[in-house]
């Protein structure tokens, strides 16, 4: 058990190391890419370029550059931006985290509940018109680009119907800190939550339905019915409970990916200055330290989510518990 846990932690560290190397290589070692040219501006002279290279340590060997960056990121924690000189990277990321978390947690609650309901109803009424309708709607939800849906939502709530009773409460785009104004926080986030959750409700509803239908054909379901317990109990205690494993696995990974910057498009469309938006801005200006920080932060969440998924798996499925 201890050994397995240690091995698991080692594996997580390895994956995070791998990701940081990949990011580093993408930005520092892609043939022809020269961060100093970007920092110095398009028409900078050779001398300026040399100067910039030296200032930012870009003339050192790659492994040294990598090690220095990691040291500044994790040990001294004083990595500064290439673009906004003097801006400390870590506090900037820390400030963006609550915004992203607010967005993702709210959306996650919505899509978990929505996915559960859709999957359960569709799975239990398999083949009916209700099932077919729900699945068609889910598939439509999965097929819309999230940023476009966000724009449609903005068009409706900010412009066309903003003056109607239905949407007059929707505040202007942007984030309101929870500590300052909880109601404002809620109002500012409701529409982004719904937009972000739409895709996932469809996704989760479909996955849960498929998994439920497969489970409901198992022998133990027939056994449960033979015990004379009601169909609702058969469906929930035996069918759903057993199908939940796939659902939870997916949830962990998606949640991790979204907190790690995957909600970028939603943040851009709704003007939320979260980690995704930060990453995007840093990418636009090729602000390498910021990119390294956000991506490593992202991979940390993804890897953590993987780990949490495994732990939850152990609680949900006794077979996995014993295998650990």
């Amino acid at each position, binding site marked *: 058990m201890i050994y397995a846990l240690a091995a698991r932690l080692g594996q997580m560290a390895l994956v995070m190391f791998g990701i940081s190397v990949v990011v580093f290589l993408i930005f520092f070692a892609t043939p022809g890419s020269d961060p100093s040219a970007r920092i110095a501006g398009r028409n900078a002279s050779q001398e300026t370029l040399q100067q910039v290279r030296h200032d930012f340590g870009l003339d050192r060997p790659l492994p040294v550059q990598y090690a220095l960056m990691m040291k500044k990121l994790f040990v001294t924690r004083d990595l500064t931006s290439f673009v906004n000189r003097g801006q400390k990277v870590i506090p900037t990321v820390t400030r963006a985290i609550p915004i992203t978390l607010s967005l993702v947690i709210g959306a996650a609650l919505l899509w978990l509940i929505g996915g559960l309901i859709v999957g359960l109803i569709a799975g239990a009424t398999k*083949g009916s018109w209700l099932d077919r309708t729900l699945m068609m709607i889910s598939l439509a939800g999965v097929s819309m680009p999230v940023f476009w849906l966000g724009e449609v939502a903005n068009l409706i709530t900010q412009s066309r119907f903003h003056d109607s009773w239905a949407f007059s409460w929707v505040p202007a785009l942007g984030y309101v800190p929870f500590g300052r104004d909880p109601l404002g926080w809620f109002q500012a986030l409701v529409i982004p939550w719904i937009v972000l959750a739409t895709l996932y409700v469809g996704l989760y509803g479909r996955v849960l339905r498929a998994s439920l239908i497969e489970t409901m054909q*198992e*022998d*133990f379901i*027939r*056994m*449960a*019915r*033979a*015990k*004379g*317990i*009601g*169909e609702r*109990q058969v469906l929930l*205690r*035996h069918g759903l*409970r*057993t199908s939940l494993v796939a659902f939870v696995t997916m949830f962990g990974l998606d949640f991790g990916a979204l907190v790690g910057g995957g909600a970028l498009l939603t943040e851009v469309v709704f003007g939320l200055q979260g980690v995704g938006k930060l990453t995007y801005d840093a990418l636009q200006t090729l602000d390498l330290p910021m990119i390294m920080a956000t991506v490593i932060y992202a991979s940390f969440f993804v890897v953590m989510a993987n780990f949490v998924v495994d732990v939850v798996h152990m609680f*949900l*499925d*006794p*077979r996995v518990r*014993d295998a650990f």
Partner: protein
Amino acid sequence: MRFEPLLEVKDLTVHFRSEEGLVEAVRGVSFNVGRNEILGLVGESGSGKSQTLLAIMGLIDSPNAVLSGSIRFEGQELMGLPRRALDRIRGKKIGMIFQDPMTSLTPVHTIGAQIVETLRAHEQIGRKAAKDRAVELIDAVGIPAPRSVADRYPHQLSGGMRQRAVIAMAMSCNPALLLADEPTTALDVTVQAQILDLIGKLREDFGSSVILVTHDLGVVAETADKVNVMYAGRIVEEGPKEAVFLQPRHPYSWGLFGSIPPFDGPRPARLSAIPGAPPKLSALPKGCSFRPRCPHAHDACLQEPPLAGPVGHRSACVLPDAAIEELAPRQEGAA
């Protein structure tokens, strides 16, 4: 109260609409089960044994299934009973065990919890008391260390132990009738014998009747009182075990029993097998469905033969008694 059998099945048919046409899985099956009686139901795989049991339990849920006939249990008609009323009978008055103990327990709940669930569905009983009852039941089916097993998950038990747990679950409300669908097929030979002993013992301890489905004639020979032989969805022979074993009347039974080695004496080098294969249930031959494989088939077999014969021992064959006497192989020392 008028005397009546515990279970009375009349003209039960189970058909499935399918791509290849109507699959006639069970075709007008009638039989009775008395109190404290063990009925053996034998036949090749696909002959409709499981569908018969599932129909009794109301467990055929395929949207393509078409059922008809009558199933009376303790005088109450089960066919077409609404789900709520059905749930007051199954699990409580009729218990069922399935073939594969590996897949018939829900993997995410403990053995104890699954037994408790059955108890609490049918009896006014507290959580704690139900748990204690579950432990007693687990003990009664011969599982060592019942208290700790109650807290185990199915995958932590061996196949034999799981089947015992399933039996404990089926017996938890002391049912009047137990339906056992090939309860030993998936188990090791040594475990098989133990499970059969256990089922035999249930009749004494709980006073239950049993329908024991099997394609293993040895199992029937050891445990049953009465035997029904099924072929292509029909009962082709029925009677007391001794009569059916010692004087089988249907040519299919002859072939079937011919393929068991004698209980004592030297084992023949090769068991005699019935040539040919059972008919497709979606394209049954006209008349007797055993006709294509029967060495004694003649023109009269183009009519569907009724189940007839001496009282208590009937068969669905047109051969006259004299011919049956003459042609039937004698099965010495069986039963």
